[in-house]
């Protein structure tokens, strides 16, 4: 191929396809390059019949390709037709492996060695990346595959699955679910256990093996593949396994390496970083544009709009207003000062230091998710103990922080450009001070997810936030009357550290006086008694440990280890000691808190001789609860099995108050010493489920409830990300007749979650192709009286508890 194209578009997802369509429409010479033999591989791989949603609703679609909510099949079919209609020049099986050259003459190389020239490049390859390949002799045989579309397609085969992550386990379970299919499934796992998989998946796999439905081998790696046999290296030596099909689920390599090899810079080293982009989507490599999921915009509508915009920019249109302009107008509506969107953006960049390094494109994105506030003098921004994890910045005006709850007069003023709210942002816990507007003030509120993205994008923001947060935390803990000089000294010798779950911070009996402030996560305090580690207490974010030894001769009196992955601020013990000596009033305060801890120590110490089984039980129950994820919970449902009569009225109540779908499964889950942890949301401090929700539909309500709003697109990411298996993908069941018509006339299925058969019979036509969306417990947000499950339990077995008190559930005396 000798021609040089104006634009080569790599990747035919919604972003690339829309770009190609627009290039075709305005007559630019173009080529759309796609690795697979079909359009839009990410969407192609959705499960059959998946309903695709077109969110956000308010955003207009600006593309020559049409897109509306509908099934996967419809969407792909329409796109295939429109591809022909627009005369898009598409090349399938064109796997781009290298881009060299400069703007005006890029050289694109494919995996099969062929090449192609283009003046500009649009990279729209998404974030799925390439599956890691099975690198053994025979690994390229035709019966090796990297994906499983429909497990029902395979019959009477010897199937080997390589890789014991969630994907591998789910495939193995799917292939062996129906014994009628007669498949013999073996899963190979390199490690000695299934640590990378969700505990529920690992447990299901073990159960399936015990039941003889499938087999797995741990500490085993494939060595060689020949038609019909795979040789593997197991702990007992080499073994030959019969093999008709191999499904390798070895994870995927993100496309970042490839993108960087093109000369494109990213915003930072973290996993969350994205390519640095100009307002016109151009990367740091001139002539290469990045759009779509790879640019950090996972929603299909965004992708398509960007395809259009990028081509307009390449074609020389410099006055194009992005499609989100009306949305941004709304964000800035109602503020004093008559500025337009670009005026406000410029103002923000100039006044708020954390925005300084952002590109206008990034700032637009942040502002779409953020809110602007205008507060009259004296109005409250937030109050101490409010739940909130957003970050605030003062755009103009002044706020006063009331740092001392006992004396409202003690305030710390913050002026233009300064930020606050970062402690809630980092720890996920309640606000530690009340904040009021000191003058008429304009504020920007950045929600947690966007703020974290900001921190990941701009290193200077991370440093600033770390420093401010440490300082504030020291002040909230030890009092706001610390002099600046001392603060400086403490900060200078402090250190920020990240610890894994189980990592030991302090070891009993060892010397040491450093102080550890828990910034996020939580730690456990344990003491050795009679050769056993006895659980003493649980310390959550916003508190500190390690002060005892300063008063007890420099020797650690207990062991402290991280309960979950935590961020810790370590203060130098010598400096802290001198600080306390110089500040007797603070020393007194610290000593007060120590008394309580001494008390517990003394109690446990007293049990040493006749080690009581009560203490033993207490610490084993605490450990059990922490294993069940309660170390990161903010509010969890527990069931006292000595009271539970199995009536399932809790589930009935949940279904009654939540569209007929119960969000808790009472019977499932683990039990220890009569305490049962049912399958139900823990409202985690830092919810895993929020991690990659394309429309950002999972939110935290003002009272701490983690809930899913109506913008859920049903992608199932949250279901996969929640380690506790509490999210279900469900259709809303049809409306049921009321309680009275059931009671008196037997109409409908009665209260509670209706049975499957009834739902199927009563779904109207419109509901047939209604999408499945994610449903989970919302802690009965907005329902007066609070959690229905707890209120509806006739015996008091069901309780909801916060992390501080649940560890005491075990101390209940009789009932």
């Amino acid at each position, binding site marked *: 191929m000798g021609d040089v194209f104006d634009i080569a578009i790599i990747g035919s997802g919604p972003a690339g396809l829309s770009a190609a369509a627009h290039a075709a429409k305005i007559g630019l010479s173009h080529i759309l390059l796609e690795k697979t033999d079909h359009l839009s591989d990410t969407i192609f791989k959705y499960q059959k019949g998946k309903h695709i949603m077109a969110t956000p609703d308010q955003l207009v679609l600006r593309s020559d390709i049409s897109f509306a909510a509908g099934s996967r099949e419809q969407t792909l079919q329409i796109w295939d037709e429109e591809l022909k209609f627009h005369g898009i020049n598409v090349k399938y099986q064109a796997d781009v492996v290298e881009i060299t050259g400069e703007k005006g003459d890029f050289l694109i190389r494919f995996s099969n060695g062929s090449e192609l020239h283009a003046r500009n490049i649009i990279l729209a390859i998404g974030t799925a990346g390439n599956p890691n390949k099975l690198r053994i002799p025979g690994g390229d045989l035709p019966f090796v595959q990297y994906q499983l579309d429909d497990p029902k397609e395979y019959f009477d085969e010897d199937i080997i699955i390589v890789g014991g992550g969630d994907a591998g386990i789910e495939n193995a379970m799917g292939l062996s679910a129906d014994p009628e299919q007669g498949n013999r499934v073996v899963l190979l796992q390199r490690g000695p256990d299934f640590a990378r998989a969700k505990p529920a998946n690992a447990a299901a796999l073990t159960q399936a093996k015990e039941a003889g439905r499938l087999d797995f081998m741990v500490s085993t790696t494939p060595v060689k593949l020949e038609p019909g046999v795979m040789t593997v290296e197991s702990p007992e030596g080499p073994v030959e396994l019969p093999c008709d099909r191999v499904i390798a689920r070895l994870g995927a390599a993100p496309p970042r390496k490839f993108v960087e090899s093109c000369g494109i810079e990213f915003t930072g080293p973290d996993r969350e970083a994205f390519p640095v982009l100009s307002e016109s989507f151009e990367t740091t490599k001139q002539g290469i544009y990045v759009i779509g999921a790879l640019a950090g915009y996972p929603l299909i509508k965004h992708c398509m709009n960007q395809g259009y915009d990028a081509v307009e920019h390449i074609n020389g249109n410099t006055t194009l207003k992005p499609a989100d302009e009306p949305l941004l107008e709304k964000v800035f509506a109602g503020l004093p000062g008559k500025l337009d969107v670009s005026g406000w953006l410029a103002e923000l960049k100039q006044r708020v230091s954390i925005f300084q390094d952002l590109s206008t494109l990034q700032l637009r994105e942040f502002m779409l998710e953020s809110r602007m506030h205008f507060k009259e003098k004296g109005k409250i921004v937030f109050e101490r103990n409010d739940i909130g994890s957003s970050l605030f910045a003062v755009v103009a005006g002044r706020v006063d922080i009331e740092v001392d709850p006992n004396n409202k007069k003690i305030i710390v003023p913050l002026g233009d450009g300064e930020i606050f709210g970062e402690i809630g942002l980092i720890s996920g816990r*309640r606000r530690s001070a009340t904040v009021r507007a000191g003058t008429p003030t304009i504020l920007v509120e950045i929600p947690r997810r966007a703020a974290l993205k900001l921190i990941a994008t701009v290193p200077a923001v991370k440093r600033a936030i770390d420093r401010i947060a440490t300082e504030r935390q020291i002040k909230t*803990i030890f009092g706001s009357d610390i002099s600046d000089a001392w603060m400086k000294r403490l900060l200078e010798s402090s250190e920020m550290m990240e610890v894994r779950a189980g990592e030991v911070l302090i070891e009993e009996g060892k010397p040491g006086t450093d102080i550890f402030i828990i910034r996020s996560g939580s730690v456990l305090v344990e003491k050795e008694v009679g050769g056993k580690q006895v659980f003493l207490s649980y310390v959550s974010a916003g508190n500190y440990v390690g002060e005892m030894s300063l008063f007890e001769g420099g020797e650690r009196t207990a062991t402290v280890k991280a309960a979950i992955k935590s961020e810790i601020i370590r203060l130098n013990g010598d400096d802290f000691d001198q600080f306390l000596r110089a500040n007797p009033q603070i020393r007194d305060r610290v000593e007060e808190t120590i008394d309580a801890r001494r008390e517990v120590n003394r109690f446990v110490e007293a049990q040493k001789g006749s080690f009581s089984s009560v203490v033993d039980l207490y610490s084993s129950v605490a450990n059990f609860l922490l294993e069940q994820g309660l170390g990161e919970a903010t509010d969890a449902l527990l069931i006292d099995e000595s*009271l539970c*009569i199995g009536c399932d009225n809790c589930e009935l109540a949940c279904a009654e108050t939540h569209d007929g779908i119960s969000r808790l499964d009472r019977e499932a889950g683990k039990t220890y010493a*009569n305490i049962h942890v049912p399958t139900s949301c823990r409202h985690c401090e830092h919810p895993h489920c929020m991690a990659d929700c394309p429309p950002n539909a999972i939110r935290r309500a003002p009272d*701490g409830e983690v809930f899913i709003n109506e913008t859920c697109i049903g992608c199932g990411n949250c279901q996969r990300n929640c380690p506790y298996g509490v999210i279900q993908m469900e259709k809303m069941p049809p409306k049921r007749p009321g309680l009275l018509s059931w009671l008196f006339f037997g109409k409908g299925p009665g209260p509670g979650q209706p049975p499957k058969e009834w739902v199927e019979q009563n779904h109207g036509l419109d509901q047939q192709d209604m999408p499945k969306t994610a449903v989970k417990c919302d802690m009965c947000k907005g329902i007066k009286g609070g959690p229905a499950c707890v209120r509806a339990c006739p015996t008091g077995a069901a309780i909801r508890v916060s992390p501080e008190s649940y560890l005491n559930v075990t101390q209940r005396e009789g009932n």
Partner: protein
Amino acid sequence: MARPVGKAHRQDARHESFLRHAGFRYLKLAVMMSLAAILGYFMVDAEPRPNGGSLIGYTLGTIGALLILWLTFLGVRKRAITAGRWKLKGWTSAHVYLGLSLIVIATLHTGFQFGWNVHTLAYVLMMAVIISGLFGIFYYASVPQQMSRNRAESSEVDMLEELADIDRQLEEIAQPLPQPYVSWVQKAVTKTKITGGLFTRLSGRVGNCATAKALDKIRAAISEVEPPLDEQLENVASILARKNVMLERARLHAKYKTLLEFWLYFHVPLTFALLAALLAHIISVFFYW
């Protein structure tokens, strides 16, 4: 310190059962009501003798009838999950103690006049409801712990699935066996009942269980056959034994569930009979007045 504060709905970890609800609030109320009734009964000198027709009799009768209506309303309260501060636990607690206070209130209302009539019928039905309620309390207090221990983290669905799995294994392993062993095993697969009617469930076992029988026969046969058949039969026996253990667990589970429920089969229908008798009692009183 930045201690998170608890939300209102979060219980104190020292949560109480329905019997101890709010520091025995309703027990105290019930005792007080009963004492007041007794006091009223003996203080007020009714002529010629206390009965339902006297002033105190009417008062007690009205209170009793209203109480019964309110007690019946628990069935609705339990299912109408409306918003608001109510807690079913409190309702159950009140239900139990105020229900028991009826023993005093209604008995005094009768003035100890019994006979073969609709009045006494209503009284007897009421006492029957109360006695069945007492059974309920007994089971609520004693069964949950046993049930929890027995199910050992597996849910009912898990149990059934595991049994189905074992059956699949049995079918597979039995196929190559000669007769009569195959048909023994097949019987264990197809003829085993997990549980049966009310009495079977309450007993927690199933007489003549096909699995137990197959296990006995196969075990007996092992010593009488030649290798390699003996080893095959050993395998079959071990799976059958596992099924037996699982069956025991499932049957016990059914037993416990039934224990927690079956008294309601008396409590609720008797309640409706009581309501009918109560209506008849009230109407007849007004007619013959």
